[in-house]
C-alpha cells in the first residue's frame, strides 16, 4: 500500500496545487513543497527501517486488465528505493528553485511538476511491463508542458524534439514488450506482462536480440547516448530551471534504470552479445560529449553536454557485467543527478541575477558572489571527479569494473576524465575568475538558495566520503545476470 501512496500522493497534490491557484497564486508552491518533503520523509523513514533480508522489501499487486494479463503491480528493492529518494529530494529542490522563477500560471506549473514526478515514481516502482510503458509515457506530457510553456526562447522546438525522440523510442519499446509477451505465451501458454514471470522466458537467440534492441533503443534515447543525444541540449537549455533539474537529475536516470532493471535481466544472452558495441557507444559518448561541452558558450548547454559525457559511463559500467561496475553505475546515477542538478540550479540563479547564460558575458564574479562561487566550485570539482566527492567513487568503480571486461574501451573512457577536467575548470574560469566584464553589484546567496545548495553540498560530500550505506542498499538488488559473466 505504501508503494501505491508514493504515486498517489503526488497525483492528488498535483490536482490540489492546480485548483488552489484560483484561490491564491502562492499556495501551489507550498502544496508542492509539502507533498515532496512528506514523500521524502516517508522514503527516508522506509530506508532506515528497511533491513536487507531478501532483495524485495515490499510488493503491491492488484488486477487491472485481466484480459491481457496486466496487473497493477508495484515492488521495491534497494535500487528502486535509492531512485525514489533521489526523485523526492531533487523534486523538493526543484520546487524551491521555481519559488520565484515561475510567476505566471503557477497552479498549472506545479501541477505538471508533481505529475511528472508521479510518473517517474511509477517508472521506478512498477513490475508490470505494460504499466511500465504506461508510466514511461505519462512522464512525457507534463514535461512537454514544462518546457513548452515556461521555457526560454526556442521552447516549442525543444519541447517537440524532446517529445518526438522519446516517443519514437517508446513505441519501439512497446513493440518489444508485446513481442516478449507473445513469445512468453507461446512457450508457456501464459499471457502476462508481469516482470517476474517474464524473467527467464525461453526464446530463440535471434528473437531475444531483436527484442533486446527494442528496449535498448528506448533507454539509450532517454539516457541519452551517442548518437541519440541531440534532443538533450535543446531540451535542457530551453527548459525552466526546475525542468532542467528534473530532466537531468531524474528523467535521464529512468533510461539507466531501465537498462539495469529490464534489459540485463530479461535478455542476458543478447546483452552479453551486444555488450562490446554498447560499451563502445558509451566511450564515444564520454569523449564526444566532453568535447562538445568544452565548445559551448551557453552555461546550460555546456552542462547539458556534460550529461551526455557522464551518462556514457553508465553504459560502459552496465554492460561490463561485474559487481564493481554495477555498484558504480548506481552511484553514478545518484551523484550525477545531484551534481548536474546543482549545476543547473546555479545556472538558474546566475540567470536570475545577470539575465544571461552566455559565458562570455560573465567573468570575475567571485568578488561579487563568493558564496555562490564556493558552491559552484564544489560541484565543478564533483563533475570532474575529484576524490572526496561522490562522482569520483562512481566513476572509479565503473572504470575498475569495466577494466576487467574491456580494457581498451576503459582506457578511452578514462581519457574522458581528462576532458572532464578541462571543461569543468573552464566553467570556473569563465564565470568566477578572470576579468569582470562589468562591475557587478549583486546579492549573494539568499536564504532560499542557501537552503537549496547546502543539502546538495552535504549529500555530495557524504557520498564521496562514506558511500557504504548506498552500496549496501543497492547490493542485494543486483540481478544475478549483472555479475554473471565476471569470469569471462
Amino acid at each position: 500500500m505504501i508503494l501505491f501512496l508514493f504515486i498517489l500522493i503526488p497525483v492528488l497534490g498535483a490536482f490540489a496545487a492546480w485548483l488552489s491557484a484560483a484561490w491564491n497564486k502562492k499556495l501551489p508552491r507550498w502544496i508542492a513543497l509539502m507533498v515532496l518533503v512528506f514523500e521524502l520523509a516517508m522514503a527516508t523513514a522506509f530506508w532506515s527501517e528497511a533491513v536487507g533480508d531478501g532483495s524485495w522489501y515490499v510488493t503491491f499487486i492488484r488486477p487491472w486488465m485481466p484480459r491481457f494479463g496486466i496487473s497493477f503491480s508495484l515492488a521495491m528493492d534497494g535500487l528502486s528505493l535509492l531512485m525514489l529518494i533521489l526523485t523526492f529530494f531533487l523534486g523538493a529542490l526543484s520546487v524551491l528553485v521555481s519559488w520565484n522563477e515561475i510567476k505566471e500560471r503557477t497552479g498549472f506549473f506545479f501541477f505538471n511538476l508533481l505529475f511528472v514526478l508521479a510518473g517517474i515514481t511509477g517508472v521506478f516502482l512498477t513490475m508490470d511491463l505494460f504499466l511500465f510503458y504506461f508510466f514511461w509515457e505519462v512522464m512525457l506530457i507534463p514535461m512537454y508542458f514544462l518546457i513548452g510553456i515556461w521555457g526560454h526562447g526556442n521552447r516549442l522546438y525543444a519541447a517537440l524534439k524532446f517529445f518526438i525522440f522519446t516517443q519514437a523510442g517508446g513505441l519501439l519499446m512497446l513493440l518489444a514488450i508485446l513481442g516478449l509477451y507473445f513469445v512468453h505465451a507461446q512457450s508457456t501458454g501464459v499471457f502476462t506482462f508481469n516482470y517476474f514471470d517474464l524473467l527467464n522466458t525461453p526464446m530463440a537467440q535471434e528473437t531475444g536480440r531483436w527484442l533486446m534492441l527494442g528496449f535498448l533503443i528506448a533507454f539509450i534515447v532517454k539516457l541519452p547516448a551517442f548518437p541519440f543525444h541531440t534532443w538533450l541540449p535543446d531540451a535542457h537549455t530551453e527548459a525552466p530551471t526546475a525542468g532542467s533539474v528534473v530532466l537531468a537529475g531524474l528523467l535521464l536516470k529512468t533510461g539507466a534504470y531501465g537498462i539495469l532493471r529490464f534489459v540485463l535481466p530479461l535478455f542476458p544472452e543478447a546483452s552479453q552479445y551486444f555488450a562490446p558495441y554498447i560499451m563502445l557507444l558509451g566511450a564515444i559518448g564520454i569523449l564526444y560529449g566532453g568535447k562538445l561541452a568544452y565548445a559551448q558558450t551557453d552555461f546550460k548547454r555546456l552542462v547539458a553536454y556534460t550529461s551526455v559525457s557522464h551518462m556514457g559511463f553508465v553504459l560502459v559500467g552496465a554492460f561490463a557485467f561485474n559487481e564493481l561496475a554495477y555498484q558504480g553505475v548506481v552511484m553514478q546515477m545518484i551523484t550525477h543527478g545531484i551534481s548536474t542538478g546543482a549545476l543547473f540550479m546555479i545556472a538558474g540563479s546566475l540567470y536570475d541575477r545577470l539575465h544571461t547564460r552566455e559565458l562570455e558575458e560573465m567573468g570575475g564574479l567571485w568578488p561579487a558572489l563568493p558564496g555562490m562561487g564556493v558552491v559552484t566550485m564544489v560541484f565543478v570539482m564533483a563533475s570532474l571527479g575529484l576524490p572526496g566527492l561522490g562522482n569520483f567513487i562512481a566513476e572509479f568503480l565503473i572504470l575498475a569494473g569495466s577494466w576487467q571486461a574491456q580494457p581498451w574501451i576503459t582506457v578511452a573512457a578514462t581519457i574522458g576524465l581528462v576532458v572532464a577536467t578541462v571543461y569543468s575548470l573552464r566553467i570556473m574560469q569563465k564565470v568566477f575568475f578572470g576579468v569582470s566584464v562589468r562591475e557587478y553589484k549583486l546579492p549573494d546567496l539568499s536564504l532560499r538558495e542557501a537552503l537549496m545548495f547546502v543539502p546538495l553540498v552535504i549529500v555530495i560530500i557524504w557520498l564521496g566520503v562514506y558511500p557504504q550505506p548506498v552500496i549496501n542498499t543497492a547490493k542485494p538488488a543486483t540481478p544475478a545476470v549483472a555479475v554473471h559473466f565476471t569470469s569471462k
Partner: protein
Amino acid sequence: MSATDLLSILPLLIISGAAVIAMLLVAIKRNHRVMHAFTVLAFILAFLALFLQPGPLPYELRPLFVVDAFAMFNTGLILVAGLSVLFLSYSYFEQREERKEEYYILLLLATVGGIVLVVSQHFISLFLGLETMSISLYGLIAYLRARERSDEAGIKYLLLAALSSAFLLFGMALVYAESGRMDFTGIGLYLAGTATVPVSVVAGFGLMLIGIGFKLGIVPFHMWTPDIYEGSPLPVAAYIATVSKGSMLVLLMRFYRDINGYEYTILWWVIAIIAMASMFTGNWLALLQQNVKRLLAYSSIAHMGYILIAFLAGQEAGQEAVMFYLVAYVITSIGAFGVLALLSDKVRDAEELSDFKGLFWRQPWLAAIFTAMMLSLAGIPLTAGFIGKFYIVAAGVDAGLWLLLILLVVNSVIGLFYYVRVVAVMFQPLEAPQRKPLPFFGVFALSGLMVLLLWLGIYPSSLIAVIRDMMLTMG
C-alpha cells in the same frame, strides 16, 4: 411480421417514426427548441429500446436483417454518437440565419440508414441503408447554403457518392450473377463450394471494395474527405466522421466474416496496401495543415489505416481491437469537432490553427478537453486512444504483421508532430483574453465524452469484457 420481430428492431422503428413525426412538427409550427428536444428524446428512447430485446440473440429477420450482440452494440454506439452530435448542434445552429428544423429530420434519416447498415446481412438492405444515409448526408453537408464552401462540398459529395454507389451496385450485381445469392451467408456458402472463384466474382468484390472504401475514406478513395469536412457544418462533419464511417466499417466486418474473407490472400494484400497508403497519405498531408478541420480529415484517413491493420490481424483479438479502436475514435472525433463547434461564432467556424491560439488561457476547460482528444488521437496513455492503439499493436504482434506494425510506429511518430503542434498553439501566450459564454449542453456533452475517454484509458476492462462477449456471440 410478429410482435417479436418488431420489438427486436424497435430502435430502428423509433428513429424512423420520429423522422415522420418530425416532419409533421415542422409543418405545424417551426420551433428550433421543440424540434431539438424532440429529436433528443427520440434518440434516448431508441437507445433505451435496445434493452428491450425480446428473444435470445442472435435474432434473424430473414432475409434482410440480423440482430445480434454485435449489431446491438453498434446501434448503441451510433445512437450515442448521434446524441452527442445533437447536443453540440443546438447552439451551433441557433446562431445561424438559416431555417434550422429540417436539419433534425435529415439527421434522423441518416441515422436510420446507419442502423440499417449495422443490422443488415443482405445486399438489398445494405444498399437501402447506404443510400438512405448518403441522400440525407447530401442535404446535411450543404445545409448552411449561405457559406462559400457549402455548395462545393455538397455537390462534390453528391457526385462522388453516387459514383461509388454505382460501383458498389455493379459489384453486387456481378457477385449475384455468378452465385445467385444476395445474403452474406449464402455468398459465403457459394464461395466455400467453388474451388476456383470466377473472375467476375473477384471483379465484383473489387468493385464493392471501391464503394465501401469511398465511404470509409481510405486511400485512394479519400479525396473527398478534407473538402467535405471543411465545407460541411461542424456537427455534420462529426457525424460523417463517426456514424457514417463507423457503420460502414461494421458492415465490412460482418460481410468479411460471413464470406470468410480471411482465406483469400489476394484480398488480404489489397487491404494491406490500402492500409499502408492510408496511414502515410493521411499523416503526411496532415503535417502542415493550418486548417484544423482539414487536419482532422487527414488524420481520420490515417486512423482508418490503423483500424485496417487490426482488421487484417483477424481472429478474435483483431476484431476486438477494431471495435475498441472504433469506440475510442468515435469519442475523440466527436469531442474534437465539438470543441470546434462550441468555439464557432455567427459568421465563421473556428477552424484555423490561429483561432486556437492561447485557448488554454481563454477557455481552460475547452482547451483541456481538446488536449485530451488530441492526445487520444496521438495515442498517449491515460486516454482511450492509447488502449486502442495498444490493442491494435497487440493483435498485430499476435498475428505476426511486423511490417505493418513498424509502419504504424513510424506513422504514430509523424502523427505526434501535428497533434502536439495543435496543443502547442493552445498554450501560446495571449494578449487580451476575451471569453465567450459557452452553451451548457454542449459543454455537458463534451465533458461527458472526456470523462468517458479517460475512464476507458485508465480502466478499459469493462468495455473490453463487453466487446469480447459480443464478438464471441456474433451471429
